[in-house]
């Protein structure tokens, strides 16, 4: 955390989370101008302001300046503090929006973080808590962030628009991350999933499971989809249902796909059967893309590789998502790390789409906030 480094400047509202997270980790102040300056409703949105409050909560000594219209943001990061916290997320975005950034920051806290997040656990936009639990946590373990403390628990499920869900996330602190050599994804071993339903008929979850199996059973016998019907206070405030599917490979890679019903009173009504079939097809698409990390976690794995010890890390990814590409550019401007990017055409083997082999040398980031015991 070099406090003397120069401030970075960006224009526009895109990739706000990335910029703030990388600023916090690198210790470089950041200035973002012209946030929705030309729109009718200019400035930061509700959920973005809420995200900034969360960053303020988990750090100590951050300086945040926002101008009156909210179109300019200046952020001077403090130290990552952690500890036991609570946060009410904005109802406009699901908890996944906040959790994605917390996963990037949590291993570098001064005290192990244990945070209670309230809001919507599942929505159609962000990766849901179920998905992150199934894919991101195994990824953290590969970097040596392990132990009983690493936990993501859904206490109450909440669907948009009213939310009412609750999640507990805790993560241990590590001094340094291990480099990874993760270039063989292996073959699909089994498929697991969760079909959840709240404040609707419990039969809907069963219909989802049947339809999803009708597609996936053609490829693989080892499929188990849990039904998760929550009742009473643990079912949140709005009705809804959805499905999260996770394919596990022989080498411990997790590829996920998910879909959720439209929020009550918004968008077209979705049949559970259609949702399940589309979700199963999305999972097949994700398997076709392949790689060792699924597309939601590409940026997380690249960040942890960058922050690892001064050693070579390699990972094989599927086609890079636009978000990941911008993340790579940000990694260069914040940490001066450039990846070696080799495209690996699928060729004769027909193992899905083209792959990309990403190689980098870690910057030897050590957790300065952590107290030496």
């Amino acid at each position, binding site marked *: 955390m070099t406090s003397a480094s120069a401030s970075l400047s960006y224009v526009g509202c895109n990739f706000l989370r990335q910029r703030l997270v990388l600023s916090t980790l690198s210790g470089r102040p950041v200035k973002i101008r012209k946030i929705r300056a030309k729109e009718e409703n200019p400035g930061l949105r509700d959920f973005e302001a809420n995200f900034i409050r969360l960053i303020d909560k988990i750090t100590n000594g951050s300086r945040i300046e926002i101008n009156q219209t909210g179109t300019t943001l200046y952020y001077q990061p403090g130290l990552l503090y952690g500890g036991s916290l609570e946060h009410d997320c904005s109802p406009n975005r699901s908890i996944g929006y906040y959790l994605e950034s917390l996963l990037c920051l949590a291993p570098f806290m001064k005290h192990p973080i244990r945070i209670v997040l309230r809001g919507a656990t599942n929505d159609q936009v962000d990766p849901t808590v179920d998905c992150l639990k199934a894919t991101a946590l195994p990824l953290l373990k590969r970097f040596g962030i392990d132990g009983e403390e690493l936990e993501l628990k859904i206490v109450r499920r909440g669907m948009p628009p009213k939310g009412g869900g609750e999640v507990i996330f805790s993560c241990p602190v590590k001094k340094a991350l291990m480099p990874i050599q993760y270039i063989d994804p292996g073959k699909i071993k089994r498929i697991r999933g969760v079909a959840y339903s709240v404040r609707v008929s419990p039969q809907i979850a069963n219909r989802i499971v049947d339809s999803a199996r009708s597609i996936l059973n053609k490829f693989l016998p080892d499929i188990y989809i849990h039904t998760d019907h929550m009742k009473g206070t643990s079912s949140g405030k709005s009705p809804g249902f959805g499905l999260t599917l996770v394919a596990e490979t022989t080498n411990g890679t997790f590829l996920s796909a998910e879909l959720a019903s439209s929020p009550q009173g918004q968008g077209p009504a979705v049949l559970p059967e259609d949702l399940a079939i589309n979700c199963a097809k999305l999972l097949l698409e994700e398997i076709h893309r392949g790689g060792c990390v699924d597309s939601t976690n590409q940026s997380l794995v690249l960040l942890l590789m960058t922050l690892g010890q001064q050693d070579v890390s390699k990972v094989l990814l599927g086609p*890079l998502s636009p978000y990941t590409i911008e993340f*790579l*550019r940000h990694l*260069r401007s914040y940490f001066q790390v*450039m*990846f*070696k*990017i080799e*495209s690996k055409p699928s060729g004769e083997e027909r193992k899905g789409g083209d792959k*990309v082999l990403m190689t980098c040398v870690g910057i030897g980031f050590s957790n300065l906030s952590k107290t030496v015991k």
Partner: protein
Amino acid sequence: MDKEERNSRNLRRKVAAATDSGNGTAEEASASEMEESSAEDKGESMEDSDTEESDGEDSQPQCAGVKTQESKFDKSEDDVEGLLKEEEEYKEASDFSLDTVGALKWKEGITQKAAEAFLRQQQSAPNLRKLIYGTVAEDEG
């Protein structure tokens, strides 16, 4: 006397062998040498030509053949020598693998083919690094 001369020739040959490193120089050196030998003594031409060929320091047998053939006409006249050399240079430029064996056909323009294949490969696979990081990436490869 015979012995002496042969010794001296051997010496010269050694010097020639030591000095030549490239192909072009090698040809010239051996050519001049041959001329000498034919002018000096014809009595032992058989034996001589044998040795000439065996230690003719070139890997291409065609060269040697050409030389022996040409050694017939040359009677150590300067203009003829010049003409010969020119002819030799011309022969050098042409590709030997073309007019000899069919097995060597695949060697035709092999560097050209490799270059084309490389360029094709480069163009078919987009340079992701350049796409992501912009033109800066080019400097570092």
